[in-house]
C-alpha cells in the first residue's frame, strides 16, 4: 500500500495509470527541494502536489506522477542545475517548491521510484507509514528564504 493510496485510486478511476509500470523499490540517497525547517512553508515539505494548498494548477486536472508522488533527483548537482534553469523562467520558483536542497536517506521499505530522466529527475511513491521528514538534512541553501 502506498501512503497516498486513495489519491492513486482516484487517478486510476480517471483512467490514469498510477503508479507507472516501471516503479521499483529503492534504498539509497535522493535529493529534493525543501523549505528551511524554521520557515512557515516547511509544513509543505515532502507533500505531493495533491496535498499542497493553494494548488498551483489552472484546471482541476490530474497528472499521475506529480500528483501523488514526490519529485526527486539522483544527485545534488542535478537538482541544483534543474532549479537554476527553472529560475530563469520563473524567478519565484523557490517560493513554490523550496529554497533548499535536502539530502534524504531512504531504505527499501520507504517507497518505490520511477527511472530518472536525463535531468536526473524521478518520482518517488512513499509506502504507507513512511515519514520523510525524519530522513533528511538540508545540504544546500539555494537562495534566501522569502515566504
Amino acid at each position, binding site marked *: 500500500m502506498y501512503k497516498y493510496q486513495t489519491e492513486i485510486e482516484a487517478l486510476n478511476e480517471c483512467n490514469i495509470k498510477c503508479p507507472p509500470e516501471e516503479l521499483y523499490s529503492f534504498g539509497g540517497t535522493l535529493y529534493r527541494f525543501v523549505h528551511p525547517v524554521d520557515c512557515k512553508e516547511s509544513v509543505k515539505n515532502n507533500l505531493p502536489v495533491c496535498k499542497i494548498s493553494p494548488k*498551483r*494548477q*489552472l484546471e482541476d486536472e490530474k497528472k499521475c506522477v506529480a500528483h501523488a508522488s514526490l519529485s526527486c533527483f539522483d544527485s545534488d548537482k542535478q537538482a541544483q542545475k534543474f532549479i537554476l534553469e*527553472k529560475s*530563469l*523562467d520563473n524567478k*519565484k520558483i523557490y*517560493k*513554490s517548491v523550496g529554497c533548499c536542497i535536502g539530502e534524504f536517506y531512504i531504505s527499501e521499505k520507504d517507497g518505490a521510484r520511477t527511472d530518472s530522466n536525463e535531468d536526473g529527475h524521478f518520482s518517488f511513491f512513499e509506502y504507507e507509514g513512511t515519514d520523510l521528514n525524519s530522513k533528511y538534512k538540508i545540504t544546500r541553501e539555494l537562495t534566501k528564504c522569502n515566504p
Partner: protein
Amino acid sequence: MQPIKGLKIESFPVKGLYKIDDLIYFDGPLLSFYTNDSGDNYLYYWVDVDDFYNRWVVFPVDLAELNDYLNEKITLYSLTNSSLTGYVLDLDDNLEAQNILLIQISDLPEDYLPETNSFYNCEKTSEEVFLNYYSKKYKKGILQTHFSGGNEIGYGTMNLHLFSKLMNNFTDFNDGLGNSFYKIEKKNQEFRKKENKENKEKTIKKVDFQNAYKFEILTARAASFSILLKPVDEEIGFEDTPTRADKYIKFLSEFLSGSETLNILTNFAHLIDISTINHYENFLKLVDESHSKFQIGYLNTVSKSAYSNQIDANQAKKIINNLQILDFENDETLVIVGKFVALNIKAGKYSFESADDKSTGVLRGEALKKCFEIAFNKTYQVEIQRKTTKKATGKKMKNIDVLKSIVEIKDAQQEIEL
C-alpha cells in the same frame, strides 16, 4: 505578494479559453498555452504564491513568436515583453480567480518577469505543441511534413525548386498509397461480409476514402521548414476511435518504417501500385541528394492517434537500395468495372479505367474476339490477369496486364461508384 499596478476588473474578459499544453511544468504548470474558438491565444505564466493564492500573469501571444520561443530563437523575457498589456489573476485553492487586474506588462515588478536569457529548455517540442494546437482547434488529425538539414533548408526557408520537387513526389506517392489503402480496406470488408452474412457495415466508398488521404495546407511553420496539413475528410471523430484519416496515416507510417526492412518492403510491394513505389523512390533520391531529413508527425487529439517517422539521407540510401534489390513476381486476377479509354485492335492493345484502377495491356482469347463490339460510352466488367515483376537488376517495377474477358454491364449506374 507584491503589490501590482493595474486596473481592477470584475471578471476575466477573454471567454472560452481552453488549454493546449503546459509548456513549462514542475510539480504543476508554470507556463501554459491557451486558446479559444475566436482565435485568441494566451499564455498563463506563474509568478508568485502566498498562503491563499497562486498568482498568474495572462498575456496574449502571437503564434509565430511562440514558435520562435519553442525553437529557442527568442527568450521568454522577450515573448512576455512583446505584449503590451495582460492580466494578473490570483487563483485560490478552488481555482477561482480573485483580484483580477488589467495591467501593462512594463508595470510588472522585475521579480515577475523572466530573466533576459530565459530560452526554452523543456521537453515539449514546437511540433508537439502546434500539432496539439491545430488538432484541438479543428477537432481532427493534423499531419506535419517537416524538412531539415542540407544547404537548401533554413529556419523557415527552403529552396523552392527542392521543395516543389519533394512535395510533387510526396503528393503522388501519397495519392498512390492512399489508393492502395482504400483497396485493402475494401477487400478486407468484402472478406468480413463474406464471412458473416449478417454484417451490416456500410459499404466502403472510394469518395470517402479519397478524402482521408487528401490534404489541405493549413499553414507553414518555421522549424526548419514545416507544412501543416489537414485531411479533407469531414468524418466526425469520436474519443478513442480512429478515423479513416488516422487509419491511413497509420498505414503510411508503417510503410515508411517498414520500407527500411527488405522483407517488410516485399510484403508491401504486393499491396501497392508500381507507380507509387516509383514515386517513393524518386522522393527518396531527392532526400538523399539534398542531404536533407524528412519527418512526418501526426496527431489527432480526439481519437488520441499519434504517429511519427523520419527518413534522413542515410536511411533514404538504405531504402533506395532495398527498392533496387527488391526481386519479386506477383500474379493476380482483377475483376473491375469501368470503361475503355483506348483501343488498338490491330495491335491487340487496350487502356481501361475504373473508379479504382487503370489498366493498359494486351487483349487475349475471348476478349480479343469481342473487342470489335466495344463502345467507349458503354460500361464493362473485365477480367485482367496482372503480373507484377521487379528484378534485382535495379530496374523499376512494371505491370503486365492481359485482358481475358469482357462483359457489358447494362445497368452501369449501380455498378460504378465514382
